[in-house]
């Protein structure tokens, strides 16, 4: 998922975006412009910030459209869960490769402005094709739409970050990353809670449920993508205008990807990759399939099931910055990752083996998810030299997307054949695999005298001793 990357960048002063050097902002031209239109003034930057936040809104909103409409999609398109989960798999496939090239495309091929517009177009077209698949009752078309949507979605997140760095570097950058993240979560949450209602409204006005209703609902959902495209166009204009007025350069991701670096990756880094894959495949596919689970096992109404299914996103919006601060202040990343993984394990155990109110388990999962993002992703920077950081993150996302694509399909098959209990056991196995890797990482780090589990004070001391 793209969010993690943002989180890293938000939390890591030495993250890959740091290399994206916008030219120093020249002093403002003599105040001929009102504050809102003057690129050097805060008011204008806030306007830009608003546009940046809505730039990603569409793709986050539409990413989880299938989860929000799971029953409707399966019923109207007459597909089983395995085929339904292909909608998620098709989103992930292009990103197995694109993770490596998003930065390259932005920097070398399109430039940030055109790159953003093009990726937004992909998102829009993908969503429209996805919806047309519904209207024409062609599931393959829906899959193709998700594929196109996937091409745009993740790369758009890269472009969004680049804009943020270019406009806010050295000013309110961490806050901006935080806000963008929260906006992403809000997009997901609104989607979960809105789409089912929207479907019923469309159903009422069209007179019947069916694939046409589904298609029309998705088209209406696609308006958010158009909104994002408008933001992309406006940003491109403002960015160009700022360049003209302030003589500011186009933003660059500065990511350097060298695939040959992979052979230099250390054992702890591979363990971090495994933790990442094992953990996220037990979260996102679960959310994709969650709505029906809460309805069937716990007797939740459709709205309540949507609400609980989005709670992970809701919690992570405010908790990410808090946990980020906590991890920054305390260090000891491996212990935090261990806590997050154990919490996720406990949460899945509760969902699988008890009939306790699932709000408990889902809130735990939300906390765990926020904590993991803050503790796991920065660890990469401790075990990789800075010039390989881009490759390492690209690789991590690529593996994660590969894992998500494969596990989505497997999860759908398990659900159709053996039911939710078995699916939960499967997710428990995934998290447990992740836990195994955390324990191994701790031991390896201990044995090698690695720096992964240093407290914040130890890190400071080492930094000082290096400086001397």
């Amino acid at each position, binding site marked *: 998922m793209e969010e993690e990357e943002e989180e890293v960048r938000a939390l890591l002063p030495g993250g890959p975006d740091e290399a994206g050097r916008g030219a120093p902002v020249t002093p403002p031209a003599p105040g001929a412009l009102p504050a809102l239109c003057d690129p050097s003034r805060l008011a204008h930057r806030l306007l830009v910030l608003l546009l940046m936040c809505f730039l990603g809104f569409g793709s986050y909103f539409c990413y989880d459209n299938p989860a929000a409409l799971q029953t409707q999609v399966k019923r109207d398109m007459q597909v089983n869960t395995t085929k339904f989960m292909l909608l998620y798999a098709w989103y992930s496939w292009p990103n197995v490769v694109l993770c490596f090239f998003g930065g390259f495309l932005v920097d070398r091929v399109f430039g940030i402005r055109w790159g953003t517009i093009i990726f937004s177009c992909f998102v829009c077209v993908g969503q429209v094709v996805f919806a047309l698949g519904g209207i024409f009752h062609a599931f393959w078309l829906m899959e193709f739409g998700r594929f196109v949507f996937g091409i745009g979605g993740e790369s758009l997140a890269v472009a969004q970050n680049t804009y943020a760095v270019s406009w806010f570097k050295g000013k309110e950058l961490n806050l901006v990353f935080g806000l963008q993240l929260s906006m992403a979560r809000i997009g997901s949450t609104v989607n979960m809670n809105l789409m089912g209602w929207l479907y019923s409204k469309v159903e009422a006005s069209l007179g019947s449920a069916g694939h046409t209703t589904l298609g029309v609902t998705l088209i209406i959902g696609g308006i958010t993508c158009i909104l994002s495209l408008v933001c992309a166009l406006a940003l491109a204009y403002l960015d160009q205008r700022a360049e003209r007025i302030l003589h500011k350069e186009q933003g660059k991701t500065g990511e350097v990807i060298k695939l040959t670096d992979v052979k230099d990756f250390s054992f702890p880094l591979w363990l971090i990759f495994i933790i990442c894959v094992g953990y996220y495949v037990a979260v996102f596919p679960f959310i994709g399939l969650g709505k029906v*689970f809460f309805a069937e096992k716990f007797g939740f109404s459709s709205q309540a099931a949507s609400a609980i299914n989005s709670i992970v996103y809701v919690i992570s919006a405010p908790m990410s910055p808090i946990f980020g601060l906590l991890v920054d202040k305390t260090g000891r990343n491996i212990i935090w990752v261990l806590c997050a993984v154990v919490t996720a394990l406990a949460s899945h155990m509760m969902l699988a083996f008890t009939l306790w109110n699932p709000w408990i388990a889902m809130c735990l999962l939300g906390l765990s998810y926020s904590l993991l993002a803050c503790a796991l992703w920065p660890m990469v920077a401790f*075990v990789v030299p800075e010039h390989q950081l881009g490759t390492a993150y690209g690789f991590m996302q690529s593996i994660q997307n590969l894992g998500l694509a494969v596990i989505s399909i497997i999860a759908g098959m398990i*659900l*159709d054949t053996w*039911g939710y209990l078995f699916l939960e*056991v499967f997710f428990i196995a995934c998290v447990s695999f992740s*836990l195994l890797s955390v324990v191994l990482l*701790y031991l390896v780090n201990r044995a090698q005298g690695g*720096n992964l589990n240093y407290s914040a004070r130890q890190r400071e001391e080492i930094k000082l001793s290096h400086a001397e």
Partner: protein
Amino acid sequence: MRSAVLLLSLLLTAAPFGLLGEETRQVSLKVISDWLDPSQNLLHIQAVGATSTLHYVWSSLGPPAVLLVATNTPSSTLNVNWSLLISSEPDGGIMVLPKESIQFSSALVFTRLFEFDSTNTSDAAAKPPGKSYPPYSLADFSWDNITDSLDPATLSATFRGHPIHDPIGAFASGSLAFRVQAFSRSGRPAQPPRLLHTADTCQLEVDLVGASPRGNHSLFGLEVATLGHGPDCPSVQEQHSIDDEYAPAVFQLDQLLWGSLPSGFMQWRPVAFSQKQGGRESAMPCQASPLYPTLAYLLPQSPIVRAFFGSQNNFCAFNLTFGASTGPGYWDKHYLSWSMLLGVGTPPVDALSSLVLGIVAVVLGAPALMLLAGGVFLLLGHKRYSEYQPIN
């Protein structure tokens, strides 16, 4: 709390119950025909255990019905007096001897097939679930000869029927079938909903196939009548479980208990299927109404129930409705299948499969062992780490 109940019921299932609850039984299926009119017949399923015998008598005289009689001797017998049975006063036409060996007896009668038009009903729980078409009375069905469908290998037989008077030809190419299957030992069929059965149970599968519905969005329902023991009607219990391994996404098991345990029970999952494969995409909800007392003359009369229990009985009835206005339905393939178990003793309870338990043990055990081994290793090991320089 819930798991404690589960465990308790597991222990109860495993414990012997005196006369009921046998591991294996000798099961025999026999068609008992009237000498004078061989088209009149009964299906007698006799399940003989070491210390008990179960008699199931299925019949399509009148509406399809079953008598369930449990005795505490391996040598009890069924007596049928045909001339009495087909007379207008059939009392005493069916007897299980010796009478004092009878530990439990009850009956189910499948009286009517309902059809509702579910168009414009968004509320799935509404009762009735839409406009009702005139119901089919199952007493007015003609049934195929049971002898032809008798299969001693699978211990099964099928009553297949269609209405005698069918002016609109709804059943011209369709039928309603009651497939009865007995078991000599416990197990689980491959076909969903995969109810766990024991030697003390017998399974009924109701299939409605190929009949033309009277509307585009017809839902079907079945009226089931039973004997009330005492003044009150038995109740339908809904058991929630964490386990849906055998019926994906169905976390509930419904059962009707005739009295305090161990007595007789009827058990089913609240799910029916609109396709023969019975996958998740064809699963329809099956809603059961509460049992309500009813008067015998309001129901189609079953001669075998009257013959065994006499005329002084309290009847209770309830309705099962298959499907909802949205989702899969009979309209998909003109197919509807629903299964239930009928038996005595404690209803079978699903336990977590050994596969699930095994996987959980391995996946939780591995990190724990790793932690333990690593801890020991680090404790015994060297404090070399200070010799290493950090990477950066």
